[in-house]
């Protein structure tokens, strides 16, 4: 009796699993473009807009006026990092969220998987004022097709506590070199994309490795970056994954030096617990340029297009820039920003294409090295390495 019951259970489970697997295989979203051509003009709003955004990108100060103008109620979900945002955008087959403020290390993954829709930029009059280097950047424009509109960009700065870190550093060596005097109080960004920061440092300090682009690394180059990061891991007090972790860490004195987003610095300065300053070290910096993208299965496409149009506006971008500490992509924002901030506007480099070109902007590492060979390590390999660095 018990034996036959056991077998029946096994049989039932097997059957159900079979059904589950079969149905999940058939429900895989179809490959290829989701929409047939981008709409030419924006239709009436649907009354709602669900966004995935970086924390700080959807503050009431500029979301409220948008809601009043368009009647689109904005619900924003903060993504913790780029990979989290990619996963959020794929929820419910892409129907849960209408749009995302994707950084360059997420955009190409979304485009390649047809998660986001092509956008006809001709419907946005403000697009003409976008910085030339952000008009058709490879992180959101593929084969001449645009997949979104640029929002903010900025560098990953070297932030330090001026009470403790003396003299003022001008090299990333304070966070990478063995026997750094700040060992135990160093912090780093807890994401595979941070490997690029190590690669950028190696590019300057070990030219023999032949690193050209910190996102296009061969196996040997990735090994070297991994080794450097493992050395660093021994000196890290705590990694930060969410920006508030770094704010708390600096405030409590558990972190004194490390990579930071401008917004983190803004909050730490506002807390007034520790004196901090940031710098762009001699080896250069990584950074990010974010794009508002629309899900190819968006439930509220018109509201999303209105949001793109709205966030491209010069006055809105000035507001975001002043709050977030990032630089607008719309050059028409610069006069107001410079006027509002005076001397403090220098660090924004608003409209400065030359400065932007020196930042190694986040992008998805691919097997294709960009020079025809496909010996480079892709993002899956990077994330495996990151677990190796963090877990070992």
């Amino acid at each position, binding site marked *: 009796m018990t034996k036959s019951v056991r077998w029946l259970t096994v049989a039932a489970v097997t059957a159900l699993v079979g059904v589950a697997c079969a149905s999940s295989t058939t429900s895989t979203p179809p490959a290829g473009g989701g929409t047939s051509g981008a709409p030419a003009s924006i239709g009436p709003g649907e009354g709602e807009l669900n966004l995935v955004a970086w924390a700080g990108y959807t503050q009431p100060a500029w979301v409220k006026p948008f809601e009043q103008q368009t009647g689109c109620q904005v619900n924003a979900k903060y993504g913790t990092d780029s990979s989290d945002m990619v996963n959020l955008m794929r929820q419910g087959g892409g129907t849960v969220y209408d749009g995302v403020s994707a950084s360059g290390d997420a955009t190409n*993954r979304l485009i390649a998987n047809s998660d986001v829709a092509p956008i006809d930029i001709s419907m946005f009059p403000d697009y003409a004022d976008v910085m030339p280097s952000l008009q058709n950047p490879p992180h959101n424009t593929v084969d001449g097709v645009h997949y979104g509109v640029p929002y903010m960009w900025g560098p990953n700065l070297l932030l330090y506590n001026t009470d403790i870190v003396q003299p003022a550093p001008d090299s990333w060596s304070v966070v990478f070199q063995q026997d750094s005097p700040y060992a135990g109080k160093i912090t780093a960004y807890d994401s595979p994309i941070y490997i690029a920061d190590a690669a950028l440092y190696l590019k300057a300090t070990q030219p023999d490795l032949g690193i050209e682009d910190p996102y296009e690394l061969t196996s040997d180059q990735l090994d070297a970056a991994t080794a450097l990061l493992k050395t660093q891991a021994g000196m*890290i007090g705590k990694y930060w994954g969410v920006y508030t972790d770094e704010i708390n860490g600096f405030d409590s004195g558990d972190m004194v030096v490390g990579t930071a987003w401008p917004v983190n610095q803004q909050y730490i300065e506002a807390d007034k617990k520790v004196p901090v300053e940031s710098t762009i070290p001699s080896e250069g910096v990584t950074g990010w340029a974010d794009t508002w993208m629309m899900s190819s299965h968006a439930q509220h496409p018109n509201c999303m297009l209105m949001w793109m149009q709205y966030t491209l506006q010069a006055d809105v971008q000035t507001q975001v820039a002043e709050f977030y500490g990032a630089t607008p992509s719309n050059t028409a924002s610069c006069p107001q920003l410079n006027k509002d901030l005076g001397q403090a506007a220098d660090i924004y480099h608003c409209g400065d294409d030359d400065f932007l070109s020196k930042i190694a902007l986040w992008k998805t590492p691919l097997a294709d090295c960009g020079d025809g060979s496909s010996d480079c390590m892709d993002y899956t390999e990077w994330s*495996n390495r990151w677990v190796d660095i963090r877990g070992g």
Partner: protein
Amino acid sequence: METSLAASRGTTRRRVSSFLNRHDAIRRALTLAPPLVWMVVVYFISVALLLANSFWRVNSLTGGVIREWSLHNYDTVFTWNVRTAFLHETYFTMAWRTVSMAALVTLADIAFGFMIAYYAARIASPRARSAVMIAAVIPLWANYLIRVFAWRSIVEGHGPADALLRLAGIHTSLYATSFAMWLTFCYLWLPYAILPIYAALERVPASYLEASGDLGAHAGMTFRQIVLPLAVPGIVAGSIFTFSLTLGDYIVAPLIGKGLFLGNGIAQLNINNRPLAATLAVVAMTIVFIYLALAKRTGAFEAL
């Protein structure tokens, strides 16, 4: 009219019950169906999908899962090396960090838990007993995350732990150390150690202890020969809780510690590489199975 309606209702009910009475198998099936369906749908299918995932792989460009069977992930995680428990270096380090923490937390919680449970079950007055037991379970009324954050603010720089250490002349922060994690885990899981041990100790009949004393055993001998063996099932049950809860935790490590726990490795890989994460989850499950198998040998399950 009313009576006839009631009568007919009565006969329907009676008919159904006599039908079920005659057909034993159907009655049993109806009783068992709801929990069985629940068990199969909620538990077995998710575990089966987890296992299936561990044999799939990921499209490295899009991060989408490709449902083709291979041992690719097992190749990444496992290796023929006895020294690292057949795991690749990284995964071994991560697993060892997790298992050793789980073991140390279990030891401490069993020791503390036993003392508290013994006091409550055998020494305390009825009033003191209920006070102790309420104190033991009261932390469970607060959300787990709140308790973790509370510990974070205790061990953080400029926090109470810092101030205490400074008084003792030690100028170091506990933040992001294994010791801070151990303290947090010990605190978090202590109630789960106390309750089963208390239940086991409470069931030891006073007459056994009196008999032991009458036969000439002194207190220490009675404790070793009578109380402790009878408490073993409770101790093992408590240790299963503390061990597996620590092993599966992935909140405390990023908030209070530094290195990745198995759960964090799984969470981190799950973002970009679900199949590999599933394979790592199989490792975690295997560790728990081994622990359960060892616990079973002590006979703890027969006493449950």
